[in-house]
């Protein structure tokens, strides 16, 4: 359903009948949901922003940790090799 159609059937415009019609029948808005809470959507949007940024930062932190481990391994190997050369 397009946004135009959703707009045409918005709660403010959907009930075009008389006051009696509106009192007798409740028609659902098809497709769109304009009764969403703005507060809820706002909180969801800001939560998503923080989560995505944190995941991105956490992935970089993880890469850095992996790098540190590789450096440690290389340093240990170098030390071992130096000690070996020194003993010969």
């Amino acid at each position: 359903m397009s946004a135009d159609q959703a707009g045409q059937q918005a709660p403010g415009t959907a009930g075009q009948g008389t006051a009696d019609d509106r009192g007798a029948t409740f028609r659902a808005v098809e497709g769109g949901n304009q009764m969403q809470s703005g507060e809820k959507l706002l909180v969801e949007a800001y939560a998503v922003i923080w989560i995505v940024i944190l995941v991105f930062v956490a992935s970089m932190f993880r890469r850095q940790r992996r790098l540190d481990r590789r450096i440690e391994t290389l340093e240990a190997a170098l030390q071992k090799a130096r000690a070996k050369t020194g003993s010969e």
Partner: protein
Amino acid sequence: MATSEALAAGTKVETSGSRSWGDVVFYTVLALCAAAFLITLQVIFFKAPVESTMGIVQKIFYFHVPIAYSMYVGAAVCFLGSAGYLARGTRGWDALARAGAECAVAMGVLVLVTGALWGAKAWGVYWTWDPRLTTALLSVLIYVAYVVMRAFAGDGDSERKFAAALGVLGAANLPIIHYSVQKWGGNHPKVITSGGGGLQHPDMKLALMLGFLTFTLLAVVLIWTRVRIELAASRLSEAEEEALELGVGEE
């Protein structure tokens, strides 16, 4: 933004454990970014007035638009790095391109999600095939393809060149996203672009300006950090290969 040479210098210092001007600038930008986030949130939620027709959900706008801008920053950096890599072939440019693409993906996902949440209230639907939404989705998918390719296709010279070509060609969609609203219409608002009514309250303008500043700093911090890690990783790989050639650490 720092050049790839300056970024490379920062990495060299980082791995040796000392501090340089590059580190000082980096931590200054990081501190400014954190401060800007706090001030921007304060202005958005306690100073900027609630919009008359949209209500409180309009406050998504103060992050949504700057995030879209920082996606452009990431994509532009990817383009710059890719073009630099194709021209020079150095790892610094490649790292810059990769960092830019990852930033573009993160920011692109945020643009699509925050836009969808705003659309749920404004249009009654989370998604519509509006020209700007469609071109933005296309751009995000291009950078997702770039990141996935870099993650799984190996790190050889030909893979880097192919990715660089994608980084250059992917940037072609950026002006299309920007002008799609003006050329093809659609539902996407054009409040701050040409023909739009603009923000009617000075505190609304302040909130948006602070949002731009915050996300510019965030994009710089994320890209810079990612470049440093990437360059350090490539230097380490070279050192490991050299060590193996010398017979170090074989056992």
